[in-house]
């Protein structure tokens, strides 16, 4: 049972015959073609959702540190709402329930919904990191900015955020790796990404082990890639004279 049959990736997805050079031609596709396109979907969902999560999460995180009680409440409510419901359930609600209440959303493609759903879910976690990052800075920094006559907005823009950003890179790295892994829920709404590929292809080929190995490998590679990029950014923005976070 442990003799692997890697030929499976060279098979055509319709005839089930092994194709030469493993990539399909003329409209027919092999499992390898499919795997690659699935990887592409995984990366697209993950990266776009990450973008949404970073933008929304940073905004919410910042709100939670403002002096205004109202804004803090808005940020808190957002965070609690999106982090206390399992992702799979949230995706389902976005796809099936929300459009039932707001008919205009019916025509929105599922790709967009899943990017938003995954993005909002992750934004709650990022908001938490950003808030913690900002609050970990000495209070004196905020005072120093204000004391120089900067407005609160300027103080955030020029003093607090550049520092907080550096503080939160390591936790954000883990969130970015998480989002790649979490993107697997997209299969629930008909996105042909890696998990969906794994489920469908192993059903069709009965070569579960090989399929799962390949898919796990690609997830691993993607997460590793994100990790390297984050490390690169972390080193690029390291401030001279500080030891940096990676001690």
């Amino acid at each position, binding site marked *: 049972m442990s003799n692997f049959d890697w030929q499976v990736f060279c098979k055509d997805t319709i005839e089930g015959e092994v194709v030469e050079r493993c990539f399909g031609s003329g409209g027919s596709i092999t499992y390898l073609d499919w795997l690659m396109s699935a990887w592409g979907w995984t990366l697209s969902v993950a990266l776009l959702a990450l973008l949404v999560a970073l933008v929304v999460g940073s905004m919410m995180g910042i709100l939670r540190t403002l002096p205004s009680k109202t804004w803090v409440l808005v940020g808190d409510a957002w965070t609690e709402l999106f982090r206390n419901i399992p992702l799979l359930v949230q995706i389902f609600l976005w796809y099936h329930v929300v459009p039932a209440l707001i008919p205009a959303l019916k025509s929105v493609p599922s790709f967009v919904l899943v990017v938003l759903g995954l993005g909002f879910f992750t934004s709650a976690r990022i908001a938490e990191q950003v808030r913690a990052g900002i609050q970990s800075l000495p209070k004196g920094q905020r005072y120093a900015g204000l004391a120089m006559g900067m407005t609160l907005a300027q103080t955030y823009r020029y003093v607090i955020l550049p520092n907080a950003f550096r503080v939160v890179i390591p936790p954000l790295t883990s969130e970015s790796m998480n989002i790649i892994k979490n993107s697997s829920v997209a299969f629930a709404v008909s996105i042909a990404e890696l998990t*969906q590929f794994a489920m469908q292809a192993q059903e069709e080929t009965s070569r*579960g082990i090989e399929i799962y190995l390949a898919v796990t490998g690609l997830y691993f590679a993607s997460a590793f890639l994100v990790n390297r990029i984050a490390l690169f950014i972390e080193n690029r923005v390291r401030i001279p004279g500080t030891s940096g976070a990676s001690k």
Partner: protein
Amino acid sequence: DTLKKIKDSGSVTMGVRESSGALSYTLGDGKYTGYHVEICDKVLSDVRKQLGLSSLSVKYQPVTSQNRIPLVQNGTVDIECGSTTNNATRQKDVSFAVTTFVEEVRIAVKANSGITKIGDLNGRSVATTTGTTSVQTLRKNERATGVDFKEVFGKDHADSFLLLESGRADAFVMDGSLLAGLIAKSKNPADYKIVGEVLSVEPIAIMMRKDDPAFKTAVDNSIKAMIKSGEIAKLYDKWLMQPIPPANAKVGLPMSDNLKAALANPNDNPAEAYVKK
């Protein structure tokens, strides 16, 4: 081998599904039931008699379409009583009892949609469930007929049906019995109908470990006896024609000619053998 294992341990593990239409599903609380589950219960009691055991404890192990084959292979599950298609690829890994159900892949649509055959699906979206053979069927049909439609995948059958219900899909292509069951349980069964040609025919059978002829013979014999005695036909009527728990809805799917033929001449032919007919 399995018979010895059952005899030695006095217990057997039955693979069941949480939700495979009327064939195999749970009533909650760790109780499983359905057409195939009941057949298996009878088979196992025959096995118990054959082994001369006074009692046999049956453990239920829920399985999914992703893990059922590995679980049978690695010995977690001794006999899988869900809704597994018997096909040639799988026969390399596992073996099947004689066919007890024949599934016909059909198309469910909204009653008022005007769709009556696969050709009408041109330019529409068609739902089916990830991890099922229907996906392949659909793909083959698309290629063969030149009909161009958009596929949307639900993560399970209820999801796929929801796609049809909410209008995200115009049709749902799936095993006929599942479609009938879902429609029966829906809020408004009259809103849906099953239409068009049979897209593919698949024998569904009880699955066991490969290379264990003694066990397979015992199971096959028990089933054949039930076919002969008409018990299978009765069970079919009970599960697929009459109201069943928990919702007390009728699936209402009369026995197909294919199944009648299979029962008339019990065999474990794979799906490939049905295509040629």
